[in-house]
């Protein structure tokens, strides 16, 4: 068993699987991170992932273009990010409830649209091929990591790039500073002349955008097909990874990779002769996350003003 677990083929497959699982989680979690750091908690991202997946899928089927697919997925995400922010910013709504509402709403909507557009047919439309991979010359020939890190589709590269970029954004760009200010002390940010509502709205829209992209990634890059259950908890995992990563991009990447690794491992454990009931191996990712959280991620409750509506004239 040891040699099986150290073979080149195994390691390559394991790492590739880890990255496949982690990529959409990182995308969605980064978006939610921006939303939450501005003080809005959007629990509806699971739903936005669904609707984004459908929108991206349908668009690519109809237009034949991946770019349009991702774009429309993202735009639909923005729409629901906007609904969330209208509820949160304009109505001072209860964000946890609103998020759950968006989740259920999107569940219904994506199912409904799927039927309206494609019908209930035995012949299921599929995208001819998933997003092509782009090997990076030279680097992609390195054994093990070459195949997994440097022979990926464009979205994986962009995601890996997005982590330091967003980190930079929050550290060095004024908008990032503004988002943090609005999420930490909206009153002070308001007094400093920042438009709290506008910043929060934009952040929620950006979060929706990435959730939509992350959703569209599923049919376009991974499965080439759409079902109503395509997400199976991606949004929730993104929230877990976000808390795990203490609202920091690198932490999110780390959390997603650990979760991806545990996921990759569970299938490979089932393929060994270990006499474990399969449900126990299926628990592995969740158990690993739980244990990691207990031992390494204590405290930390996110931005101070998270999920708190900002009302200026309340004295």
């Amino acid at each position, binding site marked *: 068993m040891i040699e099986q677990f150290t073979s080149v083929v195994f390691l390559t497959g394991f790492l590739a699987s880890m990255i496949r699982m982690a990529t959409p989680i990182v995308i969605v979690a980064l978006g939610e991170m921006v939303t939450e750091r501005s003080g809005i908690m959007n629990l509806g991202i699971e739903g936005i992932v669904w609707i984004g997946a459908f929108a991206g899928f349908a668009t690519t089927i109809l237009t034949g273009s991946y770019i349009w697919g991702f774009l429309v997925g993202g735009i639909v995400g923005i729409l629901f990010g906007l609904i969330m922010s209208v509820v949160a910013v304009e109505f001072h709504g209860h964000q946890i409830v609103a998020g759950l509402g968006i989740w259920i709403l999107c569940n219904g909507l994506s199912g409904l649209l799927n039927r309206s557009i494609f019908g209930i047919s035995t012949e299921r439309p599929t995208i001819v091929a998933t997003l092509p991979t782009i090997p990076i010359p030279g680097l992609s020939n390195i054994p093990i990591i070459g195949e997994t890190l440097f022979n990926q589709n464009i979205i994986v590269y962009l995601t890996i790039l997005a982590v330091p970029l967003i980190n930079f954004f929050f550290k060095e*760009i*004024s908008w990032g*500073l503004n988002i*943090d200010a609005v999420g*930490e002390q909206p009153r002070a940010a308001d007094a*400093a002349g*920042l438009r709290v509502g506008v910043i929060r709205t934009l952040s929620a829209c950006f979060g929706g955008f990435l959730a939509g992209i992350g959703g569209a990634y599923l049919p376009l890059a991974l499965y080439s097909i759409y079902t109503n259950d395509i997400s199976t908890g991606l949004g929730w995992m993104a929230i877990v990874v976000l808390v795990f990563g203490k609202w920091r991009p690198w932490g999110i990447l780390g959390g997603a990779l650990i979760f991806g690794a545990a996921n990759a491992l569970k299938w490979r454990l089932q393929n060994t002769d270990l006499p474990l009931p399969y449900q126990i191996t299926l628990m592995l990712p969740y158990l690993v996350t739980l244990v990691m959280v207990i031992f390494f991620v204590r405290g930390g409750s996110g931005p101070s003003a998270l999920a708190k509506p900002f009302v*200026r*004239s309340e004295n």
Partner: protein
Amino acid sequence: MANTTGVAVKMVNITKSFGSVLADDQVNFELLHGEIHGLLGENGAGKTTLMNILYGLHQPDSGEIIIQGEKKEISSPHKAVEEGIGMVHQHFMQIPTLTVIDNVILGLESLNSFKLNRARARERLVQISKIYGLQVDPDACIWQLSIGDRQRVEILKALYREVKILILDEPTSVLTPQETTELFHTIRKLVDAGLSVVFITHKLEEAMSITDRVTVLRDGKVVATRKTQDTNKAELACFMVGREVLFRLKREPYEDKQKYEVLRVENLTVKSDRGSLAVRDVTFNVQSGEIVGIAGVDGNGQTELVQALTGLRHVQGGSFWVDGVNLTNASPREILEHKVGHIPEEQNDALVANFTLIENLMLNRHYTDEFSKCGILDQGKMESRSRELIRQYDVKASSEKAIARTLSGGNKQKLIVAREIARDPRLLVAAHPTRGVDIGAEESIRNLLLEKRRQGGAILLVSTKLDEVLSLSDRILVMEKGRIVGEVTREEADIEKIGLLMAGTRTTT
């Protein structure tokens, strides 16, 4: 003072209400170029609301604002800054997790540049601090700074925005006498550089010493506007309170001659939230029938000391006893049970805003046999006892079922004091008991403390208001950087001496 005649800002017939409370009623206010204009009034008189309107934080229900002769609508602080108006709030508008520079440039760079140019900002900031003598480390995080430093950051923030009009809301309430002098110095420099300053205060001496003109507000109405040189303290006080102000403190001696030690603190050492030592090796005691005042600038360990003594913060070293019982690191409930009362420094830490007065009054005693049986609360008893307390301590509220949030600051504080004193504590730890309350409430709270002392209670009074410490205490301890740097008896105390101790100049006593 080149341009003293022109009108910088004119506010006409400003009316603003919050719910059913009328904060400002037909207020007229005029600020001239290059003047320091005092806005005087008690807490709740509408001073801050008026200036918040000018700064765009609130919208008036009616009335208009005229800046440089033009009618303006200031819909947000953003607009206010564009009009050259800056404001230093009493509660600083800062993001504690960010650095000084980031706080200063916050909200400025979003439109004209994308990447933060911290280097350029630092350069300008250092330049401005040099000109006005406002020294602050630009790279420190806000939470690492002292209150005085944080105030300087607020002023720098406004100056960085090149404001022409600067509003200072009760700027001296957190400063030592020496720091106050320094601040006044800075304000004069600002005016010399062509700024106009609105100085909000409720302290008459300050209004007299720094301002050029004074407008007095009472109950949301303008009572008078005077040139400072044409008026005097007595007249202003009369305008402000509507009656003669003289503290009628009933300082009667503790009748029982035999004093004994109630609180004993030995070598107490406590850490702050950030892990540094906030209280270092502190030893003192408080006797029955005695008020011991702890003076000092905010942030010198008083908060942590109080929290340690009330079980809210872990004690690192040393011990303390109440009536001979070692209560070091006991739970808040245990300490409470040993008849220790606690008036916390933040009203928010004492009252549950959305609870009724009954619930707030019962918060620290609902579990006693008097009010609950087998875990079930005796509503009737709670209600009647609360009604009694509210009457006895003269808390003004529509009924005992009113929500605490709806009370005025002074009445909230009276409610807290009532709750703590009515438990008949042996030791009362009172942190800033009169912070943010109007003169009437201040007077009655101080009298309640004195009455408690007369009955033989031991009181540990922590306050940054020197007059309060001086007028109430039998002994005064001065805290600086977590240590007790001096002890003075009532007889030998004076503001100058204590001020020096507070500022860190040690005396050899």
